[in-house]
C-alpha cells in the first residue's frame, strides 16, 4: 500500500536563495540526476545578483521577494507555495551546495514511512563536513536543550536539509520563525505531537559566499535561539499566536 502511495505523493523541493547565482547551476544539475519525480521552487530573497536570471535560464520556477525577509521568511514563502499548489511533501535544501541531492531519496524515505519531518543529519555517521569545533559545541547544546524540553534527541537540530509532510507544510505556512528557524521549528513540531526522524547525510562545505552566522553574531545566535526554543516549548499548541 505504501509503495503504491508514495509514487503519487506530490513533492516540492524548496530552495531559499540569497546571492546564490554561482552555486545554483550545480545544484540544479545534481537535482536533475536524481531519479525521483519532484518539482523545484527557488525563493529568491531579494538577491542583488543574478539569482533570478539563473533560475529562469534553467527553467526553474522562482518566487522573487520584493523585500529581503531573511531565511525564515523565505522558507515560509516556500511552504506557502507548497500549500497553495497542493504538495504532499516539501523538502528544504540550501542553495549554497551544502546539501547533496543524492541524499534526497533517503531523507524522503522517512516521510513515506509516516514521519511528519525527516532531517538530514551530518552527525549520525560523522562523515563529510562537520563544521568547526565551536559550532559543533553550539549544536550539541541545542540537541541537549531539545532533549530536555521534548524528550527526543535530535543530533543535528540546525540542519536545513529536511522534508515535511502535508500537516507540517500547513503549520509552517501559517507561522514560521523569522531567523535561525531550524531548532525552534523542531520543538514546535514535537510539541504539536508530530513525529520527527533523522537520517544520516554527508554535507559539503559551502561552495562560495558566507554563512549567515558570523563569529560576531555567535553569542547573539546562541541566546536568541535558546530563548526561541524555550518559548516554542511553552507556546500554545497548534500555531503559536503569530496570527
Amino acid at each position, binding site marked *: 500500500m505504501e509503495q503504491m502511495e508514495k509514487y503519487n505523493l506530490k513533492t516540492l523541493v524548496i530552495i531559499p536563495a540569497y546571492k546564490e547565482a554561482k552555486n545554483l547551476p550545480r545544484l540544479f544539475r545534481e537535482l536533475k540526476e536524481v531519479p525521483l519525480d519532484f518539482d523545484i521552487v527557488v525563493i529568491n530573497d531579494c538577491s542583488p545578483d543574478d539569482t533570478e536570471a539563473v533560475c529562469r535560464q534553467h527553467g526553474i*520556477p522562482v518566487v522573487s*521577494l*520584493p*523585500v529581503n525577509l531573511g531565511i525564515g521568511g523565505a522558507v*515560509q514563502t516556500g511552504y506557502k507555495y507548497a500549500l497553495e499548489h497542493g504538495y504532499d511533501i516539501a523538502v528544504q535544501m540550501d542553495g549554497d551546495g551544502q546539501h547533496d541531492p543524492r541524499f534526497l531519496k533517503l531523507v524522503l524515505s522517512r516521510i513515506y514511512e509516516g514521519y511528519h519531518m525527516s532531517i538530514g543529519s551530518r552527525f549520525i555517521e560523522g562523515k563529510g563536513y562537520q563544521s568547526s569545533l565551536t559550532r559543533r559545541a553550539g549544536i550539541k547544546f541545542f540537541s541537549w536543550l531539545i532533549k530536555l524540553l521534548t524528550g527526543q534527541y535530535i543530533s543535528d537540530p540546525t540542519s536545513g536539509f529536511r522534508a515535511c509532510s502535508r500537516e507540517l507544510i500547513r503549520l509552517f505556512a501559517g507561522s514560521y520563525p523569522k531567523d535561525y528557524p531550524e531548532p525552534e521549528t523542531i520543538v514546535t513540531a514535537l510539541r504539536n505531537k508530530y513525529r520527527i526522524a533523522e537520517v544520516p547525510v554527508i554535507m559539503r562545505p559551502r561552495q562560495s559566499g558566507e554563512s549567515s552566522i558570523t563569529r560576531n553574531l555567535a553569542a547573539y545566535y546562541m541566546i536568541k535561539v535558546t530563548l526561541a526554543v524555550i518559548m516554542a516549548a511553552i507556546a500554545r499548541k497548534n500555531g503559536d499566536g503569530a496570527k
Partner: protein
Amino acid sequence: MNGMGEMSSVLRIILIIGSLIFFVFIMNMVRTKKLELKYALTWILTSFSFVLLSIFPEILFFIAALMHIELPVNALYLCVISLLLLIVFTLSVAVSRQALRIKTLVQEIGLIKETLERMKKEG
C-alpha cells in the same frame, strides 16, 4: 522647605513654557495629519497633563503625599517614567504587528508575481 511646598519659580516657568511648546507641537502634528489619531491621543493627553502639572503643581504635591513620596519631583519622575515605559511597550507591540503584516504582504506579492509570470508564459 525641602521642595515640598514651593518649587523654584525658575523651574516652574521653564516647565510651563516647555510643556506649552510640547502641547502646541503635538496639536500641530495632529492638525497636519503626521500623527495617526490612535497614537496622537496618548500624546495629547500626556502633553496636556504636563501643562496642567506645571501650572498647578499642587496636584503633584497631592500625588506625592498620597504615595508617601518625600519629594514631589520624584513623584513626577515616577509618573513620567511609568508612562514612557507604557508607551514604548505599546510601540514594540505595534512594530511587531506591523512586521508580521509586512512579511505576509511581501510573501503574497512574491507568490502572485510568480503566478502571473507562469500565466503569461502559458498564454
